[in-house]
């Protein structure tokens, strides 16, 4: 069992919609098959079946086919089911659960209109195509703007009926401009007749022909070939496999790519990817491509083609390449003939003519020599070859030797004998022009390459009489080609081992080569990159610019360097620096371009960082208000920037040449001069040169606050001092303002603390007042006695004085808290601080039944601070603590106020409650303004406490106690 688990082979069922040979599905399926077999790590066994019924009907009489499949695939575990085309896909969707439960499905070759992702079903995915129907018509109208009629070739199967509706719908916008002729109701025979006699200004759209109206199935693209031969109008198609078969061209669906893409997805699924999770975007038409022969046939100028178009099947024949030699040779023959005529009929001018003849012969042999051109003629019936002396020389034949075809063939290189003989026979059979190349082995054993081009002449009964030919020695060209091939091979080796990415393109701008570095980088196949394929990897945002640079440089034959993002094999886009240079042959013929690319992602990233920091710097510099001043050792200003106008009121030019002391208030000037002199003599700096606070003198005479940094530099013998002066007047004012606002806030907080304490304070004050009144009234009563007890009265008066003092103290404390005042740092005894705060909160503690305990360490050092402010902090903490005890049972309501030394020489005060504690995230937030857990809290108390403590150089923080409740601590510096 375990051996069977390691799959030795993968089984794939390809289900065709119509049959194995129906375009375009079959082409996609065939590429799919080839590519999957190539990619798969283990052999793939393909089973294929065709849903023949789809030609006639969809969805009916399928039962027998289901049974057939069941029988076919009995006991075979499939790894993938791949229906190609919509009919097969729909069939599979209906029967998959019954036939192949659990087998993943991959739909290929169908248009996205026919296969909806949401209808796929579980464990399925699709690689669809996206036909751009209206773009096809637009293309026709672009290359043939005069088109009035478009005949649409379309069959009559259910699938084609679907497309008929789609085409009609999408072609709607063109009605009025073009008249569409729908041929779907016709048999193929009728179609052929119609298309052979179309009106002028017509075009044919070969949409699809699977089954014609007569019910005849049409396989492959044979119908297209027939129509191409017979029709009198250009044919347009939709798929790139039709190019070369008779269609003019346009933006076509890349069939091979569709097959490859489908294979890639299939391989992924069989490697374990979940089919359901794969979503492949539909494959749209590629860059426009045209058949040169069709363009010529229908007189379509290449200038009409859309930008970026490629023209294929352009002949690179011997005729084209050596056309001018041949024309030259034939011209000479003509001239010769004329001259000979002149010789016969103009005796009088014989001598001259003879001279001219010899001259022309000379010229001709010169021409022939240059081109190594030979002329010959084969008399077919007599099997005799007449050749020029040049040809005899070329073939090393004797001057009067009779040459038969066999003799000629004999002279050829053994490998070329049969092909040449066949070529000759083919030429005789098919007639017309012919051309071939062959090698001749000369008597000295050397070998020459000959290119021959000629024409067969027939008699009235179409029997071949003569075969005329021009032959040309192309040995040098062949050698050059070989050398080129060799050098190209060498080049490839170098290119492929180079650490950079290299590409080459031909004269048609299409890329012909990518080195291993490039292929490794993009992770794509060479075939995918060739032509314009590479552009698919360029980032969409960079593509237009990239193509523009390439095309413009190319047309101007200029070098270029451009940066763009290219997709790496892992899908990430990397920045590439691509440098291209035109290639020329040694004689100056343009060959195309060669370019090299390097990955500059890192550099780009660094550039971006730099750019950002430069931006920041520039913004800073533009808005900088710092004065930059340079002076010499005599304190003469050499340079000052324009910011000086804003800070000091002087313009730069007013100051250059003056002493720096002009910017200083009187008392500083002398100090500066002394300090400078001392520094120049001894090198001792009187002051720090880094961010010192100074006063400056504004032009108006007003003093301004400055922060100055200085640095010295030497230029030869000269010593220069450069300073940066920052106007901090505003900053200082802002700081003062902030301090004032802090004080104001603290005051408000104290007033609000007073509000909280109002009850307690009333009690506190009424207690002595009550005692005073009672004592006074008691005294009055005692005085009514005849013999008042004077001792008692004295005691009363003493008590009254004491209570009065007590009331005054309460009022003093209140006034201190309510007053608006600045921080007054004095030496404060912590014990007194705590005593006072406890006294002030005592009535509150009473009402709330809170037991306040104090634990003050003995011999505490005194601290430096403002008594009222510190009391405020303590009061605040204590009142907060009491609030937190509200929910606790009375016997647990304890508040402990402690004071102790800390290790670092400060005194720490703490208020510990045993209430509900603080939520963990609130431990730091409680000190933020407006943070309050109390319903009536202003949320300022602790924020102000922190401001106060920090203004004292201390620290305040909160902790939750391990046994419940919270402790607030703050530290104070000792005096």
């Amino acid at each position: 069992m375990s051996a069977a688990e390691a799959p030795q082979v993968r089984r794939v069922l390809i289900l065709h919609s119509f049959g194995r040979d129906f375009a375009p599905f079959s082409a996609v399926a065939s590429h799919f098959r080839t590519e999957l077999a190539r990619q798969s790590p283990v052999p793939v066994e393909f089973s294929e079946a065709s849903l023949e019924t789809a030609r006639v009907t969809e969805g009916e009489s399928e039962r027998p086919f289901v049974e057939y499949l069941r029988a076919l695939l009995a006991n075979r575990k499939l790894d993938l089911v791949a229906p190609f085309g919509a009919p097969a896909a729909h069939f599979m969707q209906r029967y998959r659960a019954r036939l192949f439960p659990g087998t993943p499905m991959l739909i290929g070759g169908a248009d996205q209109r026919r296969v909806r992702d949401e209808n796929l079903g579980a464990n399925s995915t699709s690689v669809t195509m996206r036909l751009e129907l209206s773009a096809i018509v637009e293309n026709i109208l672009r290359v043939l703007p005069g088109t009035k009629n478009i005949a649409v070739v379309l069959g009559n199967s259910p699938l084609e009926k679907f497309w008929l509706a789609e085409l009609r719908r999408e072609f709607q916008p063109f009605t009025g401009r073009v008249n569409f002729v729908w041929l779907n109701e016709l048999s193929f025979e009728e179609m052929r007749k119609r298309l052979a006699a179309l009106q002028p200004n017509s075009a044919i759209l070969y949409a699809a022909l699977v089954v014609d109206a007569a019910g005849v199935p049409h396989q492959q693209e044979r119908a297209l070939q027939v129509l191409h031969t017979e029709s009198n109008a250009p044919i347009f198609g939709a798929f790139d496999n039709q190019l070369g078969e008779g269609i003019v061209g346009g933006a076509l669906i890349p069939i091979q790519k569709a097959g490859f893409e489908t294979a890639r997805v299939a391989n992924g699924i069989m490697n374990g990817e979940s089919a359901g999770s794969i979503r492949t975007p539909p494959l749209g038409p590629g860059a426009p491509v045209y058949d040169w022969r069709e363009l010529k046939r229908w007189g379509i100028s290449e200038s009409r083609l859309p930008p970026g178009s490629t023209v294929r099947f352009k002949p690179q024949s011997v005729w084209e390449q050596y056309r001018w030699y041949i024309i030259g040779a034939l011209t000479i023959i003509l001239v010769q003939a004329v001259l000979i005529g002149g010789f016969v009929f103009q005796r009088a001018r014989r001598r001259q003519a003879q001279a001219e003849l010899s001259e022309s012969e000379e010229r001709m042999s010169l021409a022939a020599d240059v081109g190594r051109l030979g002329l010959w003629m084969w008399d077919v019936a007599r099997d005799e070859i007449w050749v020029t002396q040049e040809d005899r020389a070329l073939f090393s034949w004797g001057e009067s030797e009779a040459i038969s075809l066999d003799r000629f063939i004999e002279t050829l290189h053994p490998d070329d004998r049969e092909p040449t003989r066949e070529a000759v026979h083919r030429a005789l059979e098919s007639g017309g022009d012919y051309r071939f190349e062959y090698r001749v082995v000369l008597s000295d054993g050397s070998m020459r390459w000959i290119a021959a081009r000629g024409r067969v002449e027939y008699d009235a009964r179409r029997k071949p009489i003569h075969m005329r030919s021009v032959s040309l020695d192309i040995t040098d060209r062949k050698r050059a080609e070989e050398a080129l091939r060799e050098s190209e091979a060498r080049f490839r080796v170098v290119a492929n081992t180079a650490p950079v990415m290299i590409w080459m393109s031909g004269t048609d701008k299409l890329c012909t080569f990518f080195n291993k570095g490039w292929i490794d980088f993009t992770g794509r196949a060479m075939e995918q990159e060739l032509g314009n394929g590479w552009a698919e990897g360029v980032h969409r945002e960079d593509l237009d610019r990239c193509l523009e640079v390439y095309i413009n440089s190319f047309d101007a034959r200029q070098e270029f360097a451009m940066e763009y993002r290219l997709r790496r094999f892992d899908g990430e886009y990397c920045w590439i620096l691509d440098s291209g240079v035109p290639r020329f042959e040694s004689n100056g013929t343009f060959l195309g371009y060669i370019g090299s690319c390097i990955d500059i992602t890192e550099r780009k990233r660094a550039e971006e960082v730099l750019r950002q920091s430069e931006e920041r710097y520039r913004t800073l510099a533009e808005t900088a208000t710092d004065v930059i001043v340079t002076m010499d050792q005599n304190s003469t200003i050499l340079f000052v920037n324009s910011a000086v106008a804003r800070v000091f009121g002087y313009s730069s030019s007013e100051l250059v040449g003056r002493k720096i002391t002009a910017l200083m208030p009187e008392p500083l000037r002398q100090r500066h001069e002394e300090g400078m002199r001392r520094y120049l003599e001894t090198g001792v700096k009187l002051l720090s040169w880094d961010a010192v606070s100074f006063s400056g003198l504004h032009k108006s005479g007003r003093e301004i606050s400055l922060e100055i940094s200085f640095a010295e530099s030497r230029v030869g013998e000269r010593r220069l001092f450069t300073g940066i002066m920052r106007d901090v007047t505003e900053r200082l004012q802002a700081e003062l303002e902030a301090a004032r606002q802090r004080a104001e806030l603290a005051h408000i907080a104290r007033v609000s603390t007073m509000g909280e304490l109002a009850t307690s304070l009333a009690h506190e004050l009424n207690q002595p007042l009550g005692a005073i009144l009672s004592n006074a009234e008691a005294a009055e009563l005692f005085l009514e006695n005849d013999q008042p007890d004077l001792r008692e009265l004295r005691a009363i008066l003493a008590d009254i004085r004491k209570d009065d003092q007590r009331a005054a103290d309460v009022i003093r404390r209140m006034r201190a808290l309510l007053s608006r005042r600045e921080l007054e740092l004095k030496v404060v005894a912590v014990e007194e601080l705590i005593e006072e705060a406890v006294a002030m909160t005592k009535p509150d503690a009473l009402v709330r039944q809170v037991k306040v305990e104090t634990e003050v360490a003995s011999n505490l050092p005194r601290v430096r601070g403002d008594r009222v402010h510190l009391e405020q902090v303590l009061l605040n903490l204590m009142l907060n603590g009491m609030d937190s005890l509200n929910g606790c049972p009375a016997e647990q309501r304890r508040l402990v106020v402690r004071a102790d030394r800390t290790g670092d020489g400060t005194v720490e005060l703490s208020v510990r409650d045993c209430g509900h504690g603080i939520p963990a995230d609130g431990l730091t937030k409680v000190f933020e303004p407006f943070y309050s857990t109390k319903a009536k809290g202003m949320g300022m108390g602790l924020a102000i406490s922190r401001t106060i403590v920090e203004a004292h150089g201390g620290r305040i923080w909160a902790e939750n106690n391990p046994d419940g409740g919270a402790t607030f601590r703050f530290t104070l510096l000792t005096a």
Partner: protein
Amino acid sequence: MNSTQPIVRVVDDDASFRSAISRLLRAGGYAVQTFTSAAEFLERLDPHTPGCVLADLRMPGQSGLDLQALLAKADNPTPVIFLTGHGDIPTTVRAMRQGAVDFLTKPVQKQKLFDSVKRALARNAREREQRAHLRALGDRLDTLTPREREVVAHVVSGKLNKQIAADLGTTERTIKAHRAGIMKKLAVQSVAELVRLAQELGIQPVP
């Protein structure tokens, strides 16, 4: 101390105020006793001495209100006057509802204080008298036999001797004899007087 002389008991934790107020009360002719806390007061309380309590609302430990609640539960309720530095409305309402005689705020005018104290003492005297009377009646009721008490309950419900005899399963003559004994023991002259007495003593009529 003369047991008939009422005493004003001052409970306040503030020593200064305590001595001032007691001085004033003494000058006004009252006997004064001072306590520093509710606990001390309860410890030294002599329930038989008439008087009133003058207490601060806010004190450490038990507050004035706690003290009032405890006093209300005792046999011999002593009237309470509150005297406080600052009283809020909820506390005042609670104090008055619990039967405080007055609620004064410091500083307090002599006259206002004396009026309150006088009222409190009068209330205390009246209540004491009433309680003494009831206690005397109760003592008389205690002399009745259980059978006589049953008869009283029937008599005050207005039943005739014959009905009572039937209810209690005895003769009309026996009931008559019981009634005579009851009238004599309780020192009442008429049935009407007996009914009022029964009401005062809380004897429920038989339904």
